[in-house]
Every structure is written in structure tokens, then in C-alpha cells.
């Protein structure tokens, strides 16, 4: 198995990007990633595209559409798609392109342009349900996640204040992130608790809203990194991915078993048997504040029901014992679904190579884990990286 490192990363500003097409967003992120690695398109052997529902951009076969902006012209180019899980999964696909020995340098480019979808991207989510069993109930995502959040709160007796702390932490962490849409240095727990109720217990500031953006990372083989004497690199030491059954009504929503299986897969590969001791910081997927807690437990970085306590005690703050979402995460930076790779894989790379600027974790970190979550509350993708 060829050893694979991340050697460059780039991401665009997350906003409603009315002036750029999806292709142009891809180009911007790709150029930044290649520049940061000191490479050009000519050095790239293959390209992996990650992007979530076509219906956001309103383009069928969206991977083909984004191809030239992503540097895929006349190269082996493939798109992978695992819903929100794509944010970390596309890097796993990039990893196997290099680890298989077929490519030395692979570009992974993720894009999402949700603002094209009118009146609101939520209308796309009307089409993710089983057409017979679910769709007639007219569910939407906020409503379904409210059920999951409620279940989590009920089983462990978690208070809304403790969940709101996650939103406060991440929105504050995002201050200083050049791409952030939702950073707020002055936000308080009361602001979250007093925001508009969307579907109880989910309130407006518990959610990361839709956005537009792109991100890219460059992966390379150990040989290439040695030969080119590339200093800023972080090694991918473990990957894991897992899907649960389509029938969400048959699952116990209190624990993300699919994340735990993906994590165990990645930890085994990375020779991690005590994740809480061996992992220094984490970038779990946080489109809702309770999801960060849910995922910390799925990643085996907290016992079941313990994540809110760790958050309350400050363990997950940037200067805490186990910094979580030092990037600001989806809650602080923004949520253009697949493009959140910039806060997951990108942030691990920047933290592990000391390039995170104002967001740099003040103590030394050697091992980080990132995770994304997708499909219908059923997909977990996990990457472990080492400096």
C-alpha cells in the first residue's frame, strides 16, 4: 500500500456566489490548492470530484459539468457522491487512487452551489425520501433532525443550553477564518436559545444554512513527496466509510452506529486502539450543533451521552484537551455540502502543518480525525491524518 499525503489545500469564500458558476468556484479552489502545493495542472495524474445533489445546481451529471473548472480536462476524472458524507469521502476516493499505485498526484475538488435552487434548497430535500413510505408525509430535513436531536436529548437528559454551547464555540472559532460566512465573536448561548424555532428543539442558530463554495486538496504518494522535497504534508493514515440501512425508521437514532463502524475501520488501519488518548483534535461534521456531540460519540472520542459534558467543561475548545472543530466547522464557516471538505480535510492539513494562522491550536498536535455525515442520517466517512 503506497503511503499517501495531503500536500495542498484551497477553499473559496462561502457565500451566496451569484457572480460565479460552479465551474468558476472549482477553478478558484483548485488553483489555490495547486499553488499551495507548488504544483501545476501538468503534475496532476487524476482528478476526483465530490459534489452533492445535482438538483442544487440544476445540472444533471454535475460532475461532467464541473470537469474543466476542476482541472479534469483529458485526465482520468471520476465523481463520487455519498450525500453530505462526500465532504470527507471524496478524499477517501482520492486516497485509493494514489494508494493503489495508479496515480502519484491526485486533485480532489468538491463543489456546491445551493443558491441556484429556488426558492430554497430545502425543496431538493423533498426528493430524498422513499416515494411511497415517506414522501406523502411531506417531511423536511429540519423536521427529521429535530426528531433525532429530541431522541438524543431525551435518552441522555441533555439540556438545550449544553447543545447551544457547540454553536457558540464554533461560530467563535470561525472568527479569523478567511472563508467564514457565520463567524460571530460576540455570540452567546442566550442568542442561540432565543433564536427562531424551526422545528422543536431545532432553532435557527442550531443550524448551518445553505451556502455556495468549493474546496480542493492535493494528494500525493510518498515517493513524489520525497522526490519533490515537499515539506508541508500531512499523511493519511486511516480511512473508513460505512452506510446504514435505508429504513431510517428501523434505526435507533440515539447513536450513529455507521459513524462508529467507519471510525473503527479507520482507526484499525491507523493502528489506533485508544482513540481518546491517541487523537489530538477532531473535525466532526456539525451542520447542526447536536450533530457535533452525536458524532464525537460515534467517533469514540466521548462515551455515550458524555459529549455535552465535555463541551460544558471546555475540553473541546480550541485550547482545550481535545479541540473540536477548531476551523469553526459548518456552524461557523458555512455549509455548502460537499465543499465543507475545506473545514474537514483542509483544516486537518493546515493544523498539522502549522498553517492555520489565527485558528492554530496553541499546543502541539500530531494526529487529527475528520468525519462527514450524509444521505438520510445513514452515512459516515472518516479520515485520520498525522503530521
Amino acid at each position, binding site marked *: *500500500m503506497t503511503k499517501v499525503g495531503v500536500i495542498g489545500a484551497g477553499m473559496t469564500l462561502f457565500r451566496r456566489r451569484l457572480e460565479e*458558476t460552479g465551474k468558476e468556484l472549482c477553478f478558484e479552489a483548485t488553483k489555490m490548492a495547486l499553488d499551495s502545493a507548488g504544483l501545476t495542472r501538468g503534475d496532476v495524474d487524476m482528478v476526483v470530484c465530490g459534489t*452533492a*445533489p*445535482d*438538483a442544487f445546481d*440544476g*445540472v*444533471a*451529471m*454535475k*460532475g*461532467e*459539468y464541473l*470537469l*474543466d473548472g476542476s482541472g*479534469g*480536462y*483529458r*485526465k*482520468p*476524472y*471520476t*465523481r*463520487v*457522491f*455519498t*450525500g453530505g458524507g462526500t465532504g470527507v*469521502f471524496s478524499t477517501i*476516493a482520492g*486516497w*485509493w*487512487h494514489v*494508494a*493503489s499505485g*495508479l496515480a502519484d498526484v491526485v486533485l480532489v475538488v468538491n463543489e456546491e452551489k445551493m443558491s441556484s435552487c429556488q426558492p430554497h434548497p430545502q425543496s*431538493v*430535500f*423533498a*426528493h*430524498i425520501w*422513499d416515494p411511497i413510505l415517506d414522501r406523502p408525509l411531506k417531511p423536511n430535513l429540519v423536521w427529521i433532525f429535530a426528531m433525532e436531536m429530541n431522541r438524543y436529548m431525551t435518552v441522555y437528559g441533555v439540556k438545550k443550553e449544553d447543545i447551544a454551547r457547540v454553536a457558540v464555540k464554533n461560530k467563535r472559532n470561525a472568527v479569523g477564518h478567511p472563508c467564514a460566512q457565520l463567524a460571530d465573536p460576540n455570540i452567546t448561548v442566550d442568542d442561540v436559545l432565543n433564536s427562531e424555532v424551526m422545528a422543536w428543539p431545532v432553532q435557527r442558530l442550531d443550524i448551518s444554512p445553505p451556502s455556495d463554495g468549493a474546496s480542493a486538496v492535493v494528494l500525493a504518494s510518498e515517493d513524489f513527496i520525497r522526490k519533490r522535497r515537499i515539506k508541508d504534508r500531512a499523511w493519511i493514515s486511516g*480511512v*473508513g*466509510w*460505512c*452506510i*446504514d*440501512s*435505508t*429504513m431510517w425508521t428501523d434505526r435507533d437514532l440515539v447513536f450513529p*452506529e455507521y459513524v462508529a*463502524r*467507519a471510525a473503527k475501520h479507520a482507526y484499525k*488501519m491507523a493502528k489506533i486502539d485508544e482513540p481518546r488518548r491517541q487523537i489530538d483534535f477532531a473535525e466532526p461534521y456539525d451542520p447542526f450543533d447536536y450533530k457535533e456531540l452525536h458524532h464525537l460519540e460515534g467517533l469514540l472520542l466521548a462515551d455515550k451521552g458524555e459529549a455535552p459534558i465535555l463541551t460544558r467543561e471546555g475540553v473541546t475548545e480550541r485550547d482545550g484537551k481535545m479541540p473540536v472543530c477548531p476551523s469553526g466547522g459548518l456552524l461557523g464557516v458555512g455549509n455548502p455540502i460537499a465543499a465543507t471538505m475545506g473545514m474537514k480535510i483542509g483544516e486537518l492539513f493546515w493544523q498539522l502543518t502549522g498553517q492555520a494562522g489565527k485558528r492554530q491550536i496553541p499546543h502541539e498536535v500530531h494526529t487529527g480525525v475528520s468525519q462527514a455525515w*450524509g*444521505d*438520510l442520517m*445513514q*452515512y459516515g466517512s472518516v479520515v485520520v491524518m498525522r503530521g
Partner: protein
Amino acid sequence: MRVGIIGVGMTAFRPSTPEYNWKELMFEAASRAYADAEINPREDVDSFLTCAEDYYEGFGIFDEFVPDQLGAALRPTCTVSGDGLQGLANAYMQIQTGLIDVAVVEAHSKASDIVTLDGVIEHALDPIWNKPLGAHPFVVAGLEADAYLRVTRTSPKALAMVVAKNHGNALKNPLAAYGAAVEVEDAMRSPERFAPLRALDISNPADGCVVLVLASERAAKKLHSNPVWIRGVGWASDSPSLETRDWSDAAYARIAAEMAYRLAKVRRPATEIDVAEIDDRFSYKELQHLESLGLAKKGDAGKRVMRGDYGAEGRLPVNVSGGSLGCGNVFEATGLHRAAEVALQLRGDAGVRQLDRVRTGVAQSWRFIPSATGAVAVLGVGG
């Protein structure tokens, strides 16, 4: 490390399958593949891949609906938004890393469920430059066929020969949807559609599912199977923009073939390949692809099909399965169907259409209108 195909499962291809939903199609093909490989998917498979596009499926996130009917719940599973051969290539790479021993690749079409198929394909055109022109998306194929015929000085009769050959071949394939005794004159007199293409030059949609089980050499040995080896894979894309791509040469097929041949150590494809399954969703595509794959000289494929070189008894049997013209257009399952057909030929399991002395075969796919993306797999037995 060698990677082999140890299980092949297919449903029949039919113009419509009102008795099945798409999950049941997947279940049937998967069950056949697992029985063929003599494996239990819940114990023996390390990774599942499906090849699907949301717009064809009518879902916001089709990946959600994959696991249960494949036996993939709580297992490593993913969607490759591409043709089945791109899925095969990704499974091949997963196994080459050493992390995965046995992988399952699935692709299907439930085209009969799509109420507005032309509209779905139209949505793949560039939304700013091309879609507003309001043309039917198959105009792209008509323009390309025109460019191909002019540049290579190929006679339109050659296209009719492809049509007659592939529909005729399909008569021997019990899974094919559109087997028919079509005369060359019938094809040449069929109604004009997207000039120079006529109605019979265009494949018709079909429903169906294909599942392949792949294994590392080590796992294949442990499972006592006799694999068809994947000697090489390649995939590539030309420009997605209609304005800047090469209209006469299928550059994507040429680059993909170069990669697959390099991995397979095939130096002279024209003499080393015994059987070929080539994307023929429009008749001219078979000829254009044969040239891009180095199986015919540029401008020669049309003459050779008229000489009968590509018939089942010819020098290079092409699309003995019936191809897409004969079996039906199964969209993202097209490439996987072709790989399955080549595997059956190489194993000697192709029934009444079995060819003699075939040891090396090539399967090729294209991602249909309006893409310029394709993939190639070189399969072989023995050695």
C-alpha cells in the same frame, strides 16, 4: 496484485419492467452474482459500489437507497456518479490498495420510470450556453455523427451495417430487449431523426441491472474461484464544453484505452484483442470508438464493418451481445454490462453466442449525451 471478476449477475434487459421496482432489479442481479461467485455478501464482501446519477433515478440523493437490497447495510458502500466501468475501475483501485479483498460493483437502469427522459438529458447541457438554444439533446449526436462521417469519409451505409449486425446479434442473447432481423436497407430507409442519424441509428432505453463481484488474487484463491482477470482499466474525459471538444475523434476513449493497455501490457491492440464490446448507443459511436481504441485505423472501421470483420464470425467480433442497439440503452449500467459480457465470453459461459478461442477482451463505455467521458477495461483469462 491481480484483480479478477469472480461473479457475474444480470437481469434481463426489457423496454419496461412494471412488475419490478428498481430495488427488486438490483436484488435479482445481486443474488445472481453472489450465487455465481458462491459468496455470502454479509460475510465475504468488504466494499460495495453503485454507479448512479440522481436525475436518472429521480431522487435527490440516490446513494441512500442502495444498501439493503445489495446486502450492504452497515458496510463500506459508496456511489460513483458515473458509468459502471468507472465503478469497476474504482473497485479495482480499492483492491489494489490491499485494504479491500472482495468488492461488489452494481449499476442499473430503470429508464421506463422516467417520464421526461429527454428533459433529464437536456438538463446535462451547459445551462448558460447550450440549454437555452432549446434543441433536443440528441442534436449533439447528430452533429458529431456528421463530423465523423465527413472527416473519416465513412459511408452512411456503414452505420446501417452496424445497426443490422447488432440487432441481429441480439437475437442470440436471451437477455436482450431489441433483438431483430434488420436489413441494411431497413436501417437506411428508417425515418430521419438527427441528420445524418436515422431512427434505427439510435438505441432505445431499457431497464436492467448488472452486478459484478471482484476479488484480489488471494481472495479468489481462498474462495476457490476461477477468475477472469482485469488486466487493465482506464478512464478519461475530454472537454465538457461542446464548443471546445474534438468532434471527430473520441479523445476520451483514446486516452482511456492508452491507460488500460499500458496497465495490461497490450502493445498491439489490433492483434492482441480477441473480442470487443464497444459503446454503440448511436450507431456511429461503435465505429468512432473502434478507431479511438486502436482496433481500427482512422477511417477504416466503416469499411471493415461492411466487409464483415466485426461480425461474430469476423476477424474481431464486436458487440456479440447485441450491444446497446440490440440490448437497449441501460444508461450507467452500459459499461458494466459490456464487461459482464466479455467476462462470460472469456469464461466460456456465453451460451449460443459463445466464440471460439477468446482469451483477451476489451469492454468500453461512454457516458452518453452530452458527455465526453468514457472508460475501458481489458479482461483476460489464463496466465
